[in-house]
């Protein structure tokens, strides 16, 4: 499409000051939290209304221009990476909470609303929004929906998908449909369930109905120190098996603790090789005795130290330390790759030992901070992007960890999504037919393939992971997650040119 034609179509929808086309303006949109991939869009439009989004999608469809919807750009899998030659539809100004109805426990929001704002709005009614990705203070609900975001408290409350009741969405050809509704119990096929987590390939959510949950009567949190990561992993598995149903079970290893202490200083027990954080929630009459059982169990599992945050401030420090772990790791290393593979929780000890072995064998430091309760690993593979070949070596290790997750019967992603990052591993987790059917679904919903294309699936003419295992094969699946600064030179790469 000639540039003029695209721009004049956009100018019919937006005033000039909300169409960005100059290189310096576009720079901020070239990448997301997976900074190793970069692509320059032709234009970025700053949508302020749902109608504008629909009109933009229709214009893109008419002109055959690919588009990528973007909220806060916090995707760790490269989910909001622009498509070369396409446009970015920025949704952060669509940040209105449209309706809050505490009696029905629902809130209706626009996609650009920040995750934590939902809980803030619901708090006066003693309700909260359960999914709590670590980026919750900046990430948007639209992005959470597109990638089925997780968080530390998924163990009890489920993922984003379990908290979305309804959505009005615009399909890639501009048709607007409603999925789900207000009730917690859907009827008929769960179309909404399929839409959530479709990584933008099925269109853009314009209006989202979220389920709220009441604040628990009591919350009890404990930090337990262990002599090894494996011991902490086994303790976590025992907590799950014991029939307690904690709201969160998290583990941080020594490197991650060190990083947290170096930045937000949560004051974790000193000298621990691994730290287990367990949180129980519920009626105090039930939780108090359960908590005693929990403490006993953690000690039995070999805890060297057991600490309970006592004040509200200590409690929030404890979680701040955990949730800022990714950014804190920047304190240890200029670059890192973060993976979010899942293993069956009974095999956590085994998985952690294997990661430790691989780390030692390759001489690459790996920090572990993860959702132990649901087996959701987060190995942070540390490297220096300026060092020749360091990124590739780190990526190899990341790839081996993903293969291990598949081998142990788990998943290549628990909450970050496939995005750009793990496209070549999808065919390793699923069979050929499975991927074929997923592709057919995608093509049926978006025959023109303009909605966030190149995410989730490798372009069809590219080799799958097994064939791409030779060195220097492109594109790379793993990436360098951003520390605070700009991407390290040499680590960033352009998206492969689209062939369609």
């Amino acid at each position, binding site marked *: 499409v000639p540039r003029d034609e695209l721009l004049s179509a956009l100018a019919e929808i937006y005033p000039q000051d909300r169409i960005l086309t100059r290189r310096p303006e576009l720079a901020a949109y070239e990448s997301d939290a997976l900074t190793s991939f970069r692509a320059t869009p032709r234009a970025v439009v700053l949508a302020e209304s749902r109608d504008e989004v629909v009109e933009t999608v229709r214009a893109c469809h008419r002109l055959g221009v690919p588009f990528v919807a973007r909220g806060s750009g916090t995707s760790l899998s490269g989910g909001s990476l622009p498509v070369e030659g396409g446009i970015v539809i920025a949704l952060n100004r669509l940040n209105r909470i449209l309706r809050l109805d505490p009696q029905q426990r629902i809130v209706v929001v626009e996609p650009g609303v920040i995750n934590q704002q939902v809980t803030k709005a619901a708090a006066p009614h003693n309700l909260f929004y359960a999914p709590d990705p670590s980026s919750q203070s900046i990430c948007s609900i639209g992005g959470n929906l597109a990638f089925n975001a997780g968080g530390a408290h998924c163990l009890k409350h489920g993922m984003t998908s379990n908290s979305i009741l309804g959505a009005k969405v615009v399909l890639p050809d501009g048709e607007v449909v*409603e999925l789900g509704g207000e009730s917690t119990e859907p*009827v*008929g096929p*769960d*179309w909404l369930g*399929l839409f959530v987590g479709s990584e933008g390939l099925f269109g853009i959510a314009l209006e989202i109905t979220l389920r709220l949950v009441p604040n628990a009567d009591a919350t009890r949190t404990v930090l337990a120190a262990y002599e090894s990561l494996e011991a902490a992993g086994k303790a976590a598995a025992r907590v799950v098996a014991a029939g307690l149903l904690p709201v969160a079970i998290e583990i941080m290893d020594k490197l991650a603790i060190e990083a947290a202490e170096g930045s937000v200083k949560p004051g974790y027990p000193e000298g621990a090789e691994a730290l287990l954080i367990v949180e129980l929630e519920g009626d105090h009459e039930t939780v108090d005795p359960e908590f005693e059982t929990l403490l006993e169990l953690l000690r039995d599992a070999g805890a060297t130290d057991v600490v309970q945050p006592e004040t509200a401030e200590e409690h929030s420090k404890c979680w701040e330390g955990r949730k800022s772990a990714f950014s804190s790791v920047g304190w240890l290393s200029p670059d890192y790759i973060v993976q979010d593979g899942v293993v069956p929780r009974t095999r956590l000890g085994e998985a952690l030992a294997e990661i430790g072995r691989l780390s030692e064998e390759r001489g690459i430091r790996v920090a572990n901070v993860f959702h132990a309760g649901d087996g959701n690993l987060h190995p942070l593979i540390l490297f220096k992007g300026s060092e020749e070949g360091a990124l590739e070596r780190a990526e190899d290790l990341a790839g081996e960890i993903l293969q291990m997750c598949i081998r142990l019967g788990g998943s290549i992603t628990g909450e970050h999504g496939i995005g750009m990052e793990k496209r070549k591993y999808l065919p390793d987790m699923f069979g050929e037919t499975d991927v074929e059917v997923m592709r057919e679904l995608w093509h049926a919903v978006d025959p023109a393939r303009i909605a966030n294309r190149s995410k989730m699936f490798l372009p069809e003419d590219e080799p799958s992971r097994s064939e791409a295992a030779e060195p220097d094969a492109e594109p790379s699946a793993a990436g360098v997650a951003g520390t605070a600064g700009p991407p390290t030179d040499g680590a960033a790469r352009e998206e492969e040119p689209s062939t369609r």
Partner: protein
Amino acid sequence: VSATLQAQAGEEVQRAVRAHERVLPRGGGTKPALSSPPQGTTTIDLSDLTGIVEYEREELTFTARAGTSVREISDALAENGQFLPFDPPFAQAGATIGGVVAAGASGPLRYRSGGVRDFILGVRFVDGKGRLVSGGGRVVKNAAGFDLPKLMVGSAGRLGVMLELSMKVFPAPTAWATMRVDLPTLDDALEVIGRLATVPLDLEALDLEPPGRLWLRLAGDSEAMSARLERLERLLERPGERVPDEEEATLWEAARDLAWAPEGASVVKVALVPRRIPELERELEPIRIARRYSSGGNLAWLACPRERPTEELDALLRSLDLAGVVLTGSAANPLVGAHRGGAFARRVKSALDPDGKFLEI
């Protein structure tokens, strides 16, 4: 004329889908409105495709073939102190796990824990081209690929024939307690439901028998139960009637299995929120449809008597912009009322079933 084919293996299901013009899967047949074949449709009976394929107690997940009875699964879980928190109906009558997913049917306990969609992890199914497709996985957290397991919930055999399912489960509570509260009017009862929506007290189930009878269920440690019941009464600002422990389980089993519905009725599940109940009640009261609201007013069970066609209810629900599904009795089209999905639904259906092997949605 409708033929029935008893499938013994997944390959037979694949062959059956390829060989026949129109097919409809059937499990235990406890929700006949969804599994009764129209003329010219071949039934694929999955009741021999049984067995728990994998169950690790410490993992709190299991994988079972679609025709496995809910009873068998619940028994295996109970031996290990675990249960199906979404509380599927008709277990005693022979409901299968595949049928529960296809119907998207959960029971009163879904108020606290969530429904079938919140516990399904993975699925293997045969699509309209006869291909064997896997989606999701066996671990409790997974964001890889499109969420095909959720799509199968409520699909009523119209998008694929499920062969195997993976689900997560929860530890079973050791004690239960139920309180009955009678309020003078529907508005009073709805006011209480609204108040309970935001209080810090864990209620497992909250059912409404209109106009004003509420059933509230608690679970947990038996020693803490009395204190919590008292706290509940304080929150309600009125005393309740505690149901004797020996009647408690039977009472909820009857609610779950819709034992209150008249013999032969077509029972329709309707999705709604409590705010919509008064207008529905105004329409239903004059036409004498037996009914009950469950999950804190998030779903209605309406029993359409045998002599009344479900079309009447269909029109009524459409006028209120509510969606429902007929589970028992019979219905020309089990999906009644105003359904969502539009073009998205049509495109997904065309991708999974391009030749129209399955019934229309």
